[in-house]
């Protein structure tokens, strides 16, 4: 660690991992409810477990992004963080607000939570991913503003590198697009149209800036390739991301009451969205091949290459699969969507956060550059278990989705939703089994922080 204040990233990373575990446990509950419909009913209905699963995902990724920024910005700007105290204060506010919100989901019926938190005054609840009570949303904005102020001030007083500017731009974009979560008109078409300004313009817009800049940072560190080269790549990648991704939003406007020209705009531009993800893959492998040093942290290198590949598969390939309007007409809102959502989120955003944690955590825990071999070997096992099981989750859901489309949407004698769900239950069982393997991988991941701590650090080979 080159700057003392980078250490504030540590609680953020620990919280991220803790919430990640919670997310996966609720994922397993959901997966079981798919096949054993009355599991935990009425204590935890499916919709409640789903909110916990998806909201924990978003919140822990936000913890991860913030932690990544607190670590990266001082090092890039070559100056201490503007206010480590503010960073710690916001950490606790965010953690407590997040915990209270999840407890609210679990302990109070949702309509009661809406009432208690004054949803009548400014109704924003009850929309997918944006289920948080309005006061929680306001809390998120306050934390985001404090966070942006803190790293913004750091950036102003220090060296301004491309990596840090792009990260800052992505984080500002994240906060700005979130403001659309407060816009909830009665007109359902308006509501849906602008809902995607949060969801799509996050994952296929500004978050790509965050991902690409973190990847660039880690690659500079572990490969020692010249910064000029890496930053040139970074600009080209994020240029392609926004050029394709902004109008690519149109792939969500085919069937929600918007004009039909979106079928053209959406199909053409979103079909190009895999390009930036493909470039990230080429970029990562290229830089590693041209490396000027062999960094002892092999696990971090593995995560960096892994995220580049898996983001391309999940977002690029699985996204392309259902993005053209004539295909999406049949696949819209099926298990195909769920398959893509899982691999894309995992490949791009889960893995980029784990890349940063893998790179930074050893230093924050007193190592010079890397963990012991023993710890790294376990971490790499967890990488493979989680990644391979996520591939299988995706494949099983894709199979379920293809059958669902066939039986319910495409055939001459379409069958009812619930009838079809029964017929494809086998694939849901296999998804659940793959989910258990994912959990085992995650447990090994956590263990990797506790084994081999007393052994000597891995050395450059």
């Amino acid at each position, binding site marked *: 660690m080159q700057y003392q204040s980078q250490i504030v990233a540590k609680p953020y990373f620990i919280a991220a991992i803790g919430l990640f575990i919670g997310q996966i446990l609720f994922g397993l509950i959901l997966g079981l409810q798919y096949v054993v419909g009355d599991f935990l009913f009425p204590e935890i209905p499916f919709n409640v477990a789903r909110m916990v699963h998806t909201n924990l995902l978003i919140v822990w990724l936000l913890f991860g992004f913030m932690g990544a920024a607190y670590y990266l910005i001082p090092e890039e700007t070559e100056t201490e963080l503007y206010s480590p105290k503010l960073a710690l204060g916001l950490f606790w506010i965010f953690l407590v607000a997040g915990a209270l919100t999840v407890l609210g989901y679990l302990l109070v019926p949702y309509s009661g939570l809406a009432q208690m938190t004054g949803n009548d005054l400014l109704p924003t609840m009850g929309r997918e991913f944006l289920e948080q009570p309005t006061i929680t949303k306001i809390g998120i904005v306050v934390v985001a503003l404090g966070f942006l102020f803190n790293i913004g001030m750091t950036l102003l007083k220090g060296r301004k590198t491309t990596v840090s500017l792009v990260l800052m731009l992505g984080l500002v974009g994240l906060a700005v697009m979130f403001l659309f979560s407060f816009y909830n008109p009665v007109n359902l078409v308006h509501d849906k149209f602008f809902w995607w300004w949060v969801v799509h313009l996050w994952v296929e817009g500004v978050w790509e800036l965050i991902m690409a800049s973190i990847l660039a940072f880690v690659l500079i560190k572990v490969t020692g390739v010249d910064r000029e080269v890496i930053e040139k790549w970074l600009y080209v990648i994020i240029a392609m991301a926004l050029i394709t991704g902004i109008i690519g939003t149109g792939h969500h406007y085919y069937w929600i009451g918007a004009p039909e020209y979106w079928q053209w705009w959406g199909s053409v531009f979103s079909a190009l969205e895999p390009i930036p993800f493909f470039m990230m893959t080429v970029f990562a492998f290229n830089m590693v091949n041209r490396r000027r040093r062999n960094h002892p942290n092999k696990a971090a290198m593995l995560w960096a290459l892994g995220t580049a590949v898996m983001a391309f598969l999940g977002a690029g390939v699985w996204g392309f699969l259902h993005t053209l309007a004539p295909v999406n*007409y049949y696949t819209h809102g099926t298990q195909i969507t769920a398959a893509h959502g899982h691999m894309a989120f995992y490949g791009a955003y889960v893995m980029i956060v784990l890349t940063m944690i893998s790179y930074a955590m050893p230093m924050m825990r007193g190592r010079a550059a890397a963990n012991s071999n023993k710890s790294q070997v376990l971490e790499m096992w967890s990488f493979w278990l989680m990644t391979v099981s996520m591939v299988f989750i995706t494949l099983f859901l894709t199979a379920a989705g293809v059958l669902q489309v066939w039986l319910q949407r495409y055939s001459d004698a379409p069958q009812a939703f619930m009838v079809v769900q029964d017929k494809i239950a086998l694939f849901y069982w296999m998804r659940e089994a793959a989910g258990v393997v994912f959990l085992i991988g995650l447990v090994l991941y956590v263990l990797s922080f506790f084994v081999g701590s007393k052994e000597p650090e891995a050395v450059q080979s």
Partner: protein
Amino acid sequence: MSGTFTKSMARNIFYGGSVFFILVFLALTFDTVKALPKLDNRGELTPQVALGKKVWEDNNCIGCHTLLGEGAYFAPELGNVYTRRGPDFIRTWMQIQPTGAPGRRQMPQFNLNDEELDAIVAFLKYSSEINTANWPPNIEG
């Protein structure tokens, strides 16, 4: 990437490209908002439909169902349930939940009063009449 393509060229493509496509997107958005009155069935947006949307949101129906194909994939599409089942079925359905059938996916009892039941039916009727370019492909959603 070759030496003639410099970092500042890459940066200019990023800023220029982004600004250009943001402007195109805003123009399309503007045009969409202008075209929507013909498509979004706003003639039916009564106070009752507004209440229905509120009931829909306050009970997190989207946490199990899709509405016009968006939401969760655990339970049937409801954008066209009004056409598939009709108002009486929907009212009764809401009142007899949960079925309690062992092993079957369960829907909670939301204890809606008559006004709320009428409102949710009105909201689902309004949703079913939005012009969705012929989606879903058939009545099963």
